[in-house]
């Protein structure tokens, strides 16, 4: 056992630093072509980096101030491109992979629907085969980035007679297709347009945009939710980005609040949580380096990290007093906090934070998963799991 992180003089760092000095402001395309967007992928997309090298690349990119591609095009880089690599055809790889990794085409994930949040497999959007096209009809919601995306990974029902999990298929849909309407959801932060509703009115999707085979949609969707890269960097408050517990303690030190014993104690609790989550993330990395199969640790970490993030931004908000209620007001001088992207804004991160125990599995669903898969407690009984999908709806309307 060795908790040492790769040293400052690690020769692998020199290679990355050299590239960064030659490309001081790398474009998305340059990063992707160098293999630094998905370093853990095989060549030519990545550099087949073992987890330690990935760690080095992430750290060096952060120091050089490079905006990580997985924050610019998260759906593609973190989730869907991996699925495309595993399930896509050669022609699909050729057409979609490089523009996605270069962040030239932004992706979104068309999964959730108004009628089913946690019960994702109950989704109602249908894709009916019509010659060399599928015709898609339905509505998606809580779609991040749909307003910017060129490509949507769509899960739709191709077989309404099959049980709910079995009748689903995955598609790579062009978001500019006729019949696609994107409408922003104004969330409670009111600040930025993070989520959207997407209406699909007889959208014609070419049959060669089917990802995998018909009926594989559920498997593809769930694998996408699990391929999220181990968060190698700082355990930031919001989805791993934004301010960390270390930033919080530094901020409270600068603002003088640490002399209040109650603030000090709360801040220390949050700091310790943050350090332990960081260690758990490293341990997951070691598991991968030792080729141990990934278990439910991802769900455990998400279950711990989401409320941890809320604690970070809540604490910062609380010490502001009434000034914290002024829109856009920051708790600490601007030099505090090393996060990147929109969540580096403490005020926005706070108002956004209720979402982190809802998105990518609500806290309650995650606790069910953890209790069932890790502790072996009895599974929740889903009376609709085996029924043909059409009968579920009949049972509901009766």
């Amino acid at each position, binding site marked *: *056992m060795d908790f040492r992180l790769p040293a400052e003089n690690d020769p692998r760092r020199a290679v990355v630093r050299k590239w960064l000095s030659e490309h001081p402001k790398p474009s998305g395309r340059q990063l992707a072509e160098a293999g630094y967007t998905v370093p853990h992928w095989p060549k030519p997309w990545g550099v087949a980096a073992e987890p330690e090298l990935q760690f080095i690349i992430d750290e060096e990119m952060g120091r050089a101030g490079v905006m990580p591609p997985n924050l610019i095009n998260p759906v593609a880089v973190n989730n869907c491109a991996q699925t495309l690599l595993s399930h896509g055809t050669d022609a699909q790889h050729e057409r979609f992979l490089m523009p996605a990794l270069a962040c030239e085409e932004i992706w979104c994930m068309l999964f959730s629907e108004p009628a089913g949040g946690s019960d994702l497999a109950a989704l109602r959007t249908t894709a009916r085969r019509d010659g060399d096209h599928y015709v898609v009809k339905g509505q998606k919601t809580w779609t991040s980035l749909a307003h910017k995306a060129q490509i949507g990974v769509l899960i739709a029902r191709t077989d309404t007679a099959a049980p709910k999990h079995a009748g689903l298929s995955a598609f790579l849909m062009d978001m500019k297709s006729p019949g696609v309407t994107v409408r922003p959801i104004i969330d409670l932060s009111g600040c930025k347009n993070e989520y959207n509703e997407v209406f699909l009115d007889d959208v014609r999707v070419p049959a060669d945009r089917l990802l995998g085979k018909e009926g594989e949609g559920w498997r593809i969707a769930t694998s996408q939710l699990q391929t999220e890269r181990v968060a190698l960097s700082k355990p930031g408050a919001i989805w791993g980005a934004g301010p960390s517990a270390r930033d919080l303690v530094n901020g409270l030190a600068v603002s003088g609040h640490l002399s209040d014993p109650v603030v000090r104690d709360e801040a*220390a609790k949050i700091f310790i949580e943050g350090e332990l989550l960081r*260690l*758990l993330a490293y341990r997951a990395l*070691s598991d991968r380096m030792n080729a141990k199969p990934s278990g439910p640790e991802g769900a455990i970490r998400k279950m711990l990290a989401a409320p941890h993030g809320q604690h970070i931004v809540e604490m910062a908000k609380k010490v502001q007093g009434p000034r914290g209620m002024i829109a856009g007001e920051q708790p600490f001088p601007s030099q505090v906090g090393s996060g990147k992207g929109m969540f580096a804004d403490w005020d926005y991160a706070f108002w956004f934070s209720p979402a982190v125990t809802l998105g990518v599995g609500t806290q309650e669903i995650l*606790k069910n998963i953890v*209790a069932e898969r890790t502790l072996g407690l009895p599974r929740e009984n889903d009376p609709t799991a085996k029924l043909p999908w059409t009968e579920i709806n009949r049972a509901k309307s009766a």
Partner: protein
Amino acid sequence: MNFLLDEDHLALKQSAAVFLDKEIVLDALLKPGASVDQANYRGNWEKIAAMGWTGITVPESYGGLGLSCVDVAMVLGEMGRTLAPSPFLGNLIGTWALLRLGTEEQKQRILPAVAAGTARLALAVGDAAGDVADHSRELGAERSAQGFLLKGARAFAIDAAGADWLIVDAHNAETGRRGFFLVDTKSDDLTVDIMNWRDLTRQVCDVRLNGCVGEELAPLTPADWAWVRDRILFALAAECAAGTQQILSMTAEYAKERVAFGKPIGSYQAIKHSLADMLGQAECANVAVLYAAWALSEEAPQASLAAAMAKAFAADAYVDCTHRSIQIFGAIGFTWEMKNHLYLKRAHANAELFGNSRAHRSRVIDLAQQAAA
């Protein structure tokens, strides 16, 4: 970097688990009216001595096993999991103290006997409030013709009863500072009484020194006491983390078996979610302890921070999870005949000994600020 345990560590943990599962029986403590006298302290210690664990941290040059803190974490964890009533922890703490604070002559005289299991050490540094910081005048040391004469008291001394040598800290009248002294417990001017301590699996003692002679240990620097203190915090944390994991397993198994309204209670989300929370705490406590064990083994700069984080987190996790366990077991978990209270009491005791979680969290802030500077 490799955050996983080596094969050797896992083998040591496994052999400790097999041994303790076979030898440690807590049944006598589950009869109402039981006290630590029924805990088989001495019998368990004899068996542990036969395993060679009396000298687990004694260097090989003094006849011990010379194991690192990561190895010790494996054994301590199993001790904590089974509650193993025995003076293992007190002797371990005393050994660390002598290793760091003793002179070479004292180490050569005492450590081989400790390793052989023929002598036992303990540390007595708590004042009447349980404070172990360097401001207690409750024990004074004055130089005399026979050596230093120690007068006063120490409390909350783990496993002082039956120890052959005590290490105490006292206010040295000569220097006006804190000093550490070695006391032979055969002295007539010393009494040790086991306190009426709620944790029935551990002997925690009052020590009265009525002018008995103490040998001065090697001159002390603040770093020396910190070295010992960090290891004590780690040891208590290791027991807490393993106890948390154990109480989680026991409670999850019970939730699968106990049926209410026609279903195992573990199928209700109120129970599931509490158990999932416990699991999260157990995972964090475990990684905190391993990190501290590694940092101490390596004498890494962050060792004090890691030990303080481990003690603060693991003790709170243990207290919370033992409480939840009783709630999930329901009223049966509130009875003396169930093991739940033994774990609950160990959790509270460990949380209060050698500084509570809030005190360590306050230190964490300072240490983190120093590390960042």
